[in-house]
């Protein structure tokens, strides 16, 4: 018997490269797509340092100026504050109303359920421009007679409306995923319906409600088309940027847009860290 050391089969270099590519194709293209998603954000960031003259389109030189005084341009910080206020109020109201609707839709049988489903679905399938146009006609031709003129209030009313459906579907998905036996167990242990809801159901659906609120806030904060129709002279941050884009967006808007982006990322990453720490504590 001959004792030869057999080397394990090793494919040629091109073959190995091909296998490696096949294994990592999805991940590589995913990274390319993410870079594509971030490209305009990077541009926004870079041009926040542009020492621009009248228009902030071509690179003209580096400056810290816009970061030192982001509110230096008239209207930019006022519109940001309006957007944050509109976002906060609409999110709060839409989340409460939407959660109640989601509970009714999942937990009860009632006459008119199919119609309610349509009422919740159709706003999501309606283009924003149609909703904006419809709201404008009723605000101008109907509700102005009862003293409601275009402005902050009408923006909030409209935002609550278009956030509502998204809250309902988000919370609904969470409620549907709950095990009904947990609630039955609470009732078996003589908890009243109210106690069951607040001590058992509500804590379990809270993550869904939080997600819905986040979605509602981001929809409201970034909305332009509907806001443009119903805002009158009031300006939100997206409206400020759009109006400014005709003569040139000031770099201060880039500072604020990019800061909101960083803030949102930090908040979400922070929330993820907190929840993973809590999850690991529970496991111990």
């Amino acid at each position, binding site marked *: 018997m001959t004792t030869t050391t057999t080397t394990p089969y090793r494919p040629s270099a091109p073959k190995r490269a091909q296998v490696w590519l096949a294994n990592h194709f*999805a*991940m590589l293209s*995913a990274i390319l*797509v993410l870079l594509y*998603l971030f*490209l*305009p954000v990077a*541009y*926004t960031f870079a*041009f926040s340092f542009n020492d621009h003259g009248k228009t902030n389109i071509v690179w003209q030189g580096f400056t810290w100026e816009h970061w030192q005084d982001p509110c230096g341009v008239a209207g930019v910080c006022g519109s940001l504050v309006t957007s944050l206020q509109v976002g906060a109020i609409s999110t709060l109201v839409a989340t409460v109303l939407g959660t109640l*609707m989601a509970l*009714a839709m*999942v*937990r*009860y*049988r*009632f006459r008119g359920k199919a119609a*309610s*489903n349509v*009422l919740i*679905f*159709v706003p999501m*399938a*309606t*283009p924003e*421009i*149609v*909703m904006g*146009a*419809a709201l*404008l*006609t*009723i605000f101008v031709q109907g509700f102005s007679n009862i003293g409601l003129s275009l402005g902050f209030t009408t923006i909030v009313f*409209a935002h609550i409306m278009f956030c*509502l459906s998204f809250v309902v579907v*988000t919370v*609904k*998905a969470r409620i*549907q995923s*709950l095990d*009904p036996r947990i609630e039955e167990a609470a009732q078996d242990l003589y908890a009243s319906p109210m106690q069951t809801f607040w001590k058992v159901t509500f804590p379990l659906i809270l993550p*869904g409600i939080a997600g*819905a609120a*986040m979605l509602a806030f*981001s929809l409201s904060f*970034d909305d*332009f*088309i509907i806001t443009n129709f119903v805002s009158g002279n009031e300006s939100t941050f*997206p409206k400020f*940027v*759009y109006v400014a*884009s005709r003569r040139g967006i000031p770099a201060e808007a880039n500072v604020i847009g*990019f800061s*909101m*982006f960083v803030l*949102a*990322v930090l908040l*979400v*990453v922070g929330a*993820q860290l907190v929840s993973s720490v809590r999850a690991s504590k529970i496991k111990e």
Partner: protein
Amino acid sequence: MSALAHVAGGDPDFDPSGPVPAPTKRSWTAYLLLLPGALWLGVFFVLPLVQLAAVSLQSRYPGFPGYYYRDVNFENYASALTDYAPHFARSFLYAGLATLLAFVVAYPLAYAMAFKAGKWRNLMMICVVAPFFTSFILRTFAWSQILADEGWVAGTLNFLHLLPGGNIINTPLAVVAGLTYNFLPFMVLPIYASLERADPRVIEAGGDLYANGFTTFRTVTLPMSMPGVLAGTLLTFIPAAGDFVNMELLGPQRGKMVGNVINDQFLAVPGGYPVAASLSFTLMAAILVMVFLYVRRFGTEELV
């Protein structure tokens, strides 16, 4: 659209295969829970649409341009369809192309997030959603800089002689690119949600049974993600068909989309309400019909 909702919830404990409680309770409580939200949708969604419908049927005062009276007159619809047919065609064409492109770009990302990302999954999810917080108008404006004639994209393509017209900005190509970009997350998230529910072992089984990569994708992976693809295409196509911002910031001066016409007629043309209202209704009806046919063709029973 529960697929989207699930992702928006963004919570790792969600178990879609878990038990769904049968709605057994039957009481007036349901109406009490439903009432505030339904009332809100009634007053700020249904009622405005009724008013819009009434406006779309108004007639002109002869001799007083820009003045209308209450009527049931379908003339505005006739003129909306004849005068603005090209605008509708462009809207649906650009939105359709953008939806197709977004699907092609979004699928690998959603696939990688669901099956390849491992511990990076949450971070990738944040990366998909985060650009939302830089206002979409700022990002669209950034695209107008990126695609500008002096920019590196047009420069490279021109150097390679791949750009017959010589420029990208202010062309329909730029509009489709902008629409694709802006609604991409709405495509990624639902596809990811339905792939995440899929069992990766089923896809491996396809490979074990000697199906090649493409066959496995076509016969196993894609059908499993169909609910997400459906929700994603709707959530991309509908806002894209009604959009006017991408056309305004990236598109040509002539050859606008229907969204631009509606916006201008309402906000810039005195007495433009009736025509704009009939355009809005035609757009909404066309989209609802398309959604209905599309869902019937590819649909799952539960959309919401």
